């Protein structure tokens, strides 16, 4: 009995460290301007959504931008990753291991080391400050991880299935289309969620590849909101909350798939 109480005490203390910042964020975001002077810890005196309305009006365009960029980049990078993951998992050819390694190592290279050429390149091909530029960038830098995740996922599908299908006269393409795609739905869910959350939360590419609000993602908008001194803290907190809600909901309701993605990506790094 005391043992369990002790365990709970530690678990709750740890939970406090993770939850307290979130509490002050939500608490502040619900305060009126008047109520702000009581500080971020004192519970809000009213459930006031004025700050949310203000924040939403300031970042609604960027929310839409982020949604467009994240949805298209997620779909494209998942499909391309499933295609290459399928080959690397089920077919042997000369140099396959080296090519796979070269591909996956791209994941570990800091984005800063390619940032300057990236910005110049996007300018040259006319993709600077467009949806295309950001989508292409996210798809390209998503390839290592989506390939790795799908390779690991397809390892769970027996090789015999492929061999039988090839003997039956189905080519690589038909085997993929008729056998692998139908079996890939859970894989797509895991990889898609992984990609969507990462792209939604990305900041550096959004900051360097856009000018002004037209194509700016929401992370940049929230950073700007925080950077301006004229905006009150309840609005800043509301903005950060709005930008975080989609991903937090995904985490809470699809936690199993998130965990699967994180484990799948790291077990066989």
């Amino acid at each position, binding site marked *: 009995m005391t043992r369990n109480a002790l365990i709970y005490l530690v678990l709750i203390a740890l939970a406090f460290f993770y939850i307290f910042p979130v509490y002050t964020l939500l608490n502040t975001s619900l305060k009126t301007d008047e109520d702000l002077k009581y500080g971020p810890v004192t519970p809000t005196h009213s459930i006031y959504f004025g700050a949310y309305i203000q924040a939403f009006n300031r970042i609604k365009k960027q929310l839409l931008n982020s949604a467009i960029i994240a949805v298209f980049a997620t779909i494209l990078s998942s499909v391309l990753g499933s295609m290459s993951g399928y080959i690397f998992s089920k077919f042997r050819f000369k140099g396959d291991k080296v090519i796979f390694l070269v591909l996956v190592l791209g994941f570990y290279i*800091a984005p*800063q080391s390619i940032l300057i050429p990236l910005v110049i390149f996007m300018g040259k091909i006319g993709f600077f400050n467009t949806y295309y530029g950001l989508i292409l960038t996210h798809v390209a830098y998503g390839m290592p991880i989506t390939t790795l995740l799908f390779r690991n996922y397809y390892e769970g599908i027996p090789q015999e299935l492929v061999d039988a299908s090839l003997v039956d006269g189905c080519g690589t393409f038909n085997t993929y289309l008729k056998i692998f795609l139908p079996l890939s739905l859970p894989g797509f869910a895991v990889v898609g969620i992984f990609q969507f959350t990462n792209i939604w939360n990305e900041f550096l590419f959004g900051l360097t590849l856009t000018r002004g609000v037209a194509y700016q993602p929401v992370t940049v908008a929230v950073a700007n909101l925080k950077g301006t001194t004229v905006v009150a803290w309840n609005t800043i907190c509301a903005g950060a909350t709005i930008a975080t809600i989609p991903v937090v909901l995904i985490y809470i309701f699809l936690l199993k798939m*998130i965990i699967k993605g994180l484990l799948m990506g790291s077990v066989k790094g």
Partner: protein
Amino acid sequence: MIVKKNIPNIIFIAPAVILVVIFVYIFSGWNVWTSLTDWRIIGRMGKFIGVQNYIELFTNDDTFRMCFFNTIKLMAIFIGLTIPLGIICAIFLDLGVKGKGIFRTIYLIPLSFSFVASATMWSWMFMPDKGSINTLLRMLNLHFLTQPWITSTRQAIICVAIVYIWQFSGFATLIYYAGISSVDPNIIDAVKVDGATTFQKYSRVVIPLQKPATLTVLLILLMYSLRAFDLVWVLTGGGPAFSSEVLATYMYRVTFNQNLFAYGASISFVMFILSFIIIIIPVLIGTLKIRE
């Protein structure tokens, strides 16, 4: 015949390979080339000046040196505390009390925050006068514990590390929890038969078996702390007085605020070399070992 058989394979992997080759490898090379010029005006090509930018960087740039050591410091504090915290969380979840699922969810929530959102939230936490931490301490009559946090040159980088710990310890917990859960039950039974206490079970048997988990966590944490940009940029802006400036923020400032493109590229390449030494070489060694 072999060539013909390979064509579909090539088509299937082509998009991934071409994109990565261009966006990662060719761009990395292009970046190196840029760093060897004096390029600083858009629209005009730079002149080749050899390794002069690197000489400047390593012999004459105090800010760079500071950023370099700040990056190392951030890595050390962040990783040094996240791993033990992750192990502790994982063990207490593994003790299997009712409702552990809720706690696990709570521990993982920070991972869903963007660095921008968490930096915004924590700068509100760290404000010296109105911030949540100092307010809470004052409410608890612990005035003597209040700190200047991000406004202090001594503490700013520690604040950055704290937010990183907050954000990533859930990831460490998850990996360790998976590792602990997959320990062979027979081993656990044998330990219990031997009459070991719970503490001994973990300290002598379960945790020493977590080397693969530690390697995984270490690799990811190293990777994220080296490229640390968003969080520093929004939380402290590298300040006060460059006390929390890291390589990534300095590279951005030099390149995009001061338009010293070539000089920025040389900082980028230093980051590339660092990620090579501390991340890619260990991964390669690990891959070769597994194959043996």
